[in-house]
């Protein structure tokens, strides 16, 4: 009894502290606010949501059954189905869901100020993203680890299944293109960054050969060797940067780098996995976990001041990084970290096959997303500790603020964010770069933010090393996502083409491998190419498109979950997934509507295309812009149709879900629940009997 009273008092304190911290973050309008408030607000919100909301979902909505055997137990084959310790599963699940998304989205959304993004990351995660991950993990576990697409087909029907499949393929293409663009913008005319990123390829191959031939399967040895080499490559990049003969070899235009990334993506998709993809992934996973931990420690040790105001004037839609008003675009810009539909692909299919007991679903599904959301909060901190003037100078594309440094700083200062050419030059020199202007995409400003945090926490002298370490860290796992995504896209395409020609469907038939890999690479390569030649920076087009597609996938996942809840007689709890679904439908539809219909050329695709066509016809464009204008116009039309397609798929699946639910509630026949029958767990028998 005393224990419960103490625990109640404890949770009350957490609630009070959390309310104070959230209030402090939300209401502060002073000069600056300490990052520790963000951490306190986040930790309290997560703790309360995890302790109470996720426990309630687990007990009442999903009714987790500890005595029921999981697929891992029933189908244990020592390979993909293996009952596994929950912390190990948690590690695998988190490593799989946390990619570059939660680092980039918050950085871009910081153009609205720190407040909107932070509030959305917190509420979106605990009420939307975590719920999605947890429910999908549960439903897939009850269905022998079936994938989201299969569940959509079984529970809703062929339409839902097809939508999930096509949606996944499309989102993959957009995702890889935008990530490729982020890497290209970080490497553009930066011999240090380019050589370091380039060095990760031979290092991965070396590690691959080590793990395959020299010491087969010794994952830890190989990874440690690779990590040491990666750190050497960061330092070596600095040496190359100062070497007159080697420097020009790594100093390239964005377009050249884009072609190199495209070529690399193709190679990575057709080479055996053990040679490049798998070893790169081991390195990137260790690097990711290590750096995130380091960043968390550094923020707590250093307690930096946030310099960005709570809200900027750009909430009216005039922002330089991407056009569009606060609503709905902050919710589209931050997908990963708040709600990410992509997680549903990991939560179904892979992770459920490892669960030893259903009760672990709460910690892995809900808790895993809580941790990813925390990563997004840290990215927000790293972006907003920068001087706002510096932040905008790094992230504003040349097409918006002008190509010349003096022009750009004058423009940015005129917005009320003072910055000088000297300040930017000093910063660039400290970071070991020639310029930091117009490095749109989030990675470089995040790297500057991380470098200044690490620099203050662990020694100022190493700023340039920290900067390039951060760039390498982001590039390594962006490239892993690029490799892995291209490969998955290839498999999906082969699976699809196999319906028409069985030979094309064979994953080992080399002509088919080349053809389908080429098709996937061409698809994302096209968007990457357009993004690079676009003077507005490309990110302003691609990132919202990615956000819309990712939220669409989340809506598919939540539709499947809501449908299953209703069909299994839990209508009164359907709001748990239904409310986030409705919210996603609202923001995705509003954003799509604006992207298609808006008359603002910085928002509407058709408006931008028309304006560019008019300028081209009147000869108002300078020759270098006129040369690429027809391609950009075509692309703007394509993007508009693509957006329309996404929103059509979104509503198709929502209506399909509503149709199934209505039929079920009217007592008409619907596809039966595909849940596998109950079997008692033998793993828990012993303690159940006690």
């Amino acid at each position, binding site marked *: 009894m005393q224990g419960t009273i103490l625990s109640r008092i404890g949770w009350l304190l957490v609630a009070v502290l959390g309310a104070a911290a959230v209030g402090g973050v939300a209401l502060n309008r002073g000069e600056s606010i300490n990052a520790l408030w963000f951490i306190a607000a986040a930790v309290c919100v997560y703790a309360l949501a995890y302790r109470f909301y996720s426990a309630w979902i687990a007990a009442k909505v999903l009714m987790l059954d500890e005595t029921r055997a999981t697929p891992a137990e029933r189908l244990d084959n020592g390979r993909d189905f293996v009952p596994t310790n929950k912390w190990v599963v948690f590690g695998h699940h988190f490593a799989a869901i946390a990619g570059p998304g939660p680092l980039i989205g918050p950085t871009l959304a910081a153009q609205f100020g720190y407040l909107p993004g932070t509030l959305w990351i917190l509420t979106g995660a605990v009420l939307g993203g975590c719920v999605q991950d947890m429910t999908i993990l549960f439903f897939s576990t009850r269905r022998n680890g079936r994938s989201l697409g299969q569940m959509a087909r079984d529970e809703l029907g062929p339409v839902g299944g097809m939508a999930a499949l096509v949606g996944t393929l499309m989102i993959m293409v957009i995702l890889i293109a935008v990530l490729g663009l982020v890497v290209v913008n970080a490497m553009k005319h930066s011999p240090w960054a380019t050589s370091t990123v380039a060095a990760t390829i031979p290092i991965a191959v070396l590690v691959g050969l080590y793990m395959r031939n020299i010491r087969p*399967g010794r994952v830890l040895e190989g990874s440690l060797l690779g990590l040491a080499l990666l750190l050497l490559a960061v330092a070596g990049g600095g040496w190359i940067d100062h070497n007159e003969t080697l420097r020009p070899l790594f100093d390239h235009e964005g377009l050249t780098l884009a072609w190199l990334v495209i070529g690399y993506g193709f190679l990575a998709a057709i080479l055996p*996995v053990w040679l490049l993809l798998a070893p790169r992934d081991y390195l990137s996973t260790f690097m990711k976990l290590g750096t995130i931990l380091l960043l968390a420690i550094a923020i707590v040790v250093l307690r930096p001041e946030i310099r960005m105001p709570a809200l900027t004037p750009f909430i009216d839609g005039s922002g330089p990084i991407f056009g569009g008003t606060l609503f709905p675009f902050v919710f589209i810009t931050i997908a990963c970290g708040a709600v990410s539909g992509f997680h549903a692909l990991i939560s179904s299919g892979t992770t459920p096959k490892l669960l030893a007991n259903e009760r672990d679903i709460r910690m892995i599904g809900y808790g895993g997303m809580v941790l990813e959301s925390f990563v997004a909060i840290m990215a927000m901190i790293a972006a907003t500790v920068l001087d706002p003037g510096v932040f905008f100078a790094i992230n504003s594309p040349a097409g918006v603020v002008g190509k010349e440094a003096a022009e750009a700083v004058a423009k940015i200062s005129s917005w009320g964010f003072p910055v000088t050419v000297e300040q930017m030059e000093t910063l660039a020199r400290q970071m070991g770069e020639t310029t930091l202007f117009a490095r749109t995409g989030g990675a470089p400003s995040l790297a500057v933010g991380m470098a200044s945090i690490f620099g203050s926490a662990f020694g100022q002298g190493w700023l340039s090393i920290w900067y390039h370490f951060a760039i390498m860290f982001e590039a390594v796992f962006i490239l892993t*996502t690029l490799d892995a995504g291209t490969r998955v896209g290839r498999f999906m395409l082969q699976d699809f083409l196999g319906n028409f020609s069985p030979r094309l469907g064979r994953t080992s038939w080399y002509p088919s491998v080349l053809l389908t890999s080429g098709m996937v690479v061409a698809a994302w390569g096209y968007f990457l190419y357009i993004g690079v030649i676009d003077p507005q920076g490309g990110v302003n087009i691609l990132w919202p498109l990615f956000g819309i597609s990712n939220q669409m996938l989340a809506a598919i996942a939540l539709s499947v979950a809501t449908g299953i809840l209703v069909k299994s007689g839990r209508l009164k709890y359907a709001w748990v997934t239904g409310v986030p679904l409705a919210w996603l439908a609202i923001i995705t539809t509003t954003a799509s509507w604006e992207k298609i219909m808006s008359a603002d050329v910085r928002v509407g695709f058709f408006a931008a295309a028309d304006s560019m066509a008019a300028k081209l016809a009147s000869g108002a464009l300078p020759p270098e812009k006129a040369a690429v204008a027809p391609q950009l116009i075509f692309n703007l039309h394509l993007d508009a149709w693509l957006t329309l397609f996404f929103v059509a798929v979104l509503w198709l699946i929502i209506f399909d879900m509503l149709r199934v639910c209505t039929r079920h509630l009217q007592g008409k026949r619907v596809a039966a629940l595909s849940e596998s029958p109950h079997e008692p767990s033998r793993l828990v028998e012993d303690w159940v009997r006690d």
Partner: protein
Amino acid sequence: MANRLWRFIRRLSGDDAYERYIAHHAAAHPEESPLSRKAFFKQELERKWAGVRRCC
């Protein structure tokens, strides 16, 4: 304690995958001879990377 941590790290990274496979194989199919360490590692990687393993 250090021993448990080490076992956990090996398990988490997949460093002990082959040992687990051998144990599982001996229990489940004692009549067949197991794969070599090298062949097992290659097959595992191919299986692992045939699906969605990494997110955005």
